[in-house]
């Protein structure tokens, strides 16, 4: 088939055939000029169009690929969550037990008004699942967890996710807390939760310090009166992604 060279590039040229077909063709460098007529192999130019059957096969393959990616992603995600809890020392069994318990509690609570609304059974089940999912999500966002003791008078500092967390106990009765974003990353969204503990590790209360867009350079300071018997606190940092 005859074709005219319309444009020459480094590795190829663009030709147009007599039939009005524009094609890319490999040509030796420095041999041809624009406007030269060359013969191109018809077999080489033959690019079979996809038949409807081939198109269907392609679609099925694409769909199958998406399904595989979703399944693999889900499996890896579950594995990651399990590994995370295992590494946190809580153990998978404990985590599952807590999750089950939470689900049962929510279901029980949701089941109470069952006699009032016949259709509420389905709804409460959904709510229970949502609550469990929310709980899991929250647990999943814990980025830091550690125990700190309150028998200190000097400042104790800890850098957590680009935020300098400092605390000290003044006169044995007041817990002073300071937080400063010393990172250069975008603002922090999340909560610093102080679970106040007695000597037997039982919780007395939770002090929440939430942040919304706590940007680099921001500073936070507060003081809390210690309650009787509080000897330590467990700091848990939740980050919203």
């Amino acid at each position: 088939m005859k074709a005219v060279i319309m444009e020459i590039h480094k590795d190829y040229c663009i030709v147009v055939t007599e039939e009005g077909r524009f094609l890319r063709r490999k040509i030796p460098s420095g041999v041809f000029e624009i406007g030269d007529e060359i013969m191109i192999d018809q077999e080489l130019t033959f690019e079979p169009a996809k038949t409807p059957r081939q198109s269907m096969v392609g679609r099925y393959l694409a769909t199958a690929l998406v399904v595989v990616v979703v399944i693999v992603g889900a499996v890896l995600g579950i594995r990651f969550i399990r590994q995370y809890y295992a590494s946190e020392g809580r153990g998978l069994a404990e985590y599952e037990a807590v999750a089950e318990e939470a689900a049962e509690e929510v279901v029980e609570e949701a089941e109470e008004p069952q006699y009032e609304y016949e259709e509420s059974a389905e709804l409460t089940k959904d709510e229970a699942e949502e609550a469990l999912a929310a709980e899991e999500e929250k647990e999943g966002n814990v980025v830091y967890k550690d125990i700190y003791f309150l028998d200190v008078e000097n400042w104790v500092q800890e850098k957590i996710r680009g935020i300098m967390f400092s605390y000290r106990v003044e006169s044995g009765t007041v817990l002073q807390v300071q937080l400063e974003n010393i990172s250069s990353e975008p603002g922090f969204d999340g909560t610093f939760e102080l679970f106040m503990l007695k000597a037997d590790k039982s919780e007395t209360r939770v002090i929440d310090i939430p942040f919304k867009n706590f940007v680099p350079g921001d500073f936070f300071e507060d003081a809390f009166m210690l309650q009787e018997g509080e000897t330590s606190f467990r700091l848990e940092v939740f980050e919203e992604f």
Partner: protein
Amino acid sequence: MRSLEDRISRAKDEKDEANRLISEFKPFIASVVQKKVGRFVEYGVDEELSVGLMAFKEAIDSYDRQKSKFLSFARMVISMRLIDYYRKSKKERTVSIEGSDRSDIAADESSMEQYKIADENEKRILEIIEYRNLLKKWGISLEQLVDISPQKEDLREQYKMVARVIAGNESILKALLRTKRLPVKEIENILSIHPKKLERGRIYIIAMVLAMVAGFSYLNISRGDMK
């Protein structure tokens, strides 16, 4: 439309016209240089192209339309300046000088057939450059045409038929040239082709219409349509 020779005459006095010509003929200059040096050359990278550009400008300034066709003359000037350049930088051996252009021309002249072919080639080059400029005005590149050019002969023929209808219908053609949009409804009324199909082939159809309207004689893009 003014001939290339007319434009050259004008370019001798008007710098803008000379610059426009150089810009339009850059692909031609590159292809001549490439053929001489025997490898791919790139603007901004290879010095030979600067030599080629200067030689083309020299050809514009010294062209005498009574003696020869401009592109043959420009090709000869570019080749000679390239040889001078290589002699100067002692790189003559890399230049493909199997037969100088003067002897090429002599050989061409010795055979009427060869002369005819060379003449046709030259006219084809002019038409290619004109076609590229036309497409450029419509924002269409040759690369784009390669990608959207229909592979199936049936479809290609259908699009060419649409292009023929547009080119042959004054009101539809005017609408296309004015709005730069394919008058889908009007075409649908005449050919009963689905609008989506027309839309898919829009660029190709426009490219064909432009070629038909330009009335190229040597750039035989659509067999049976152009001549």
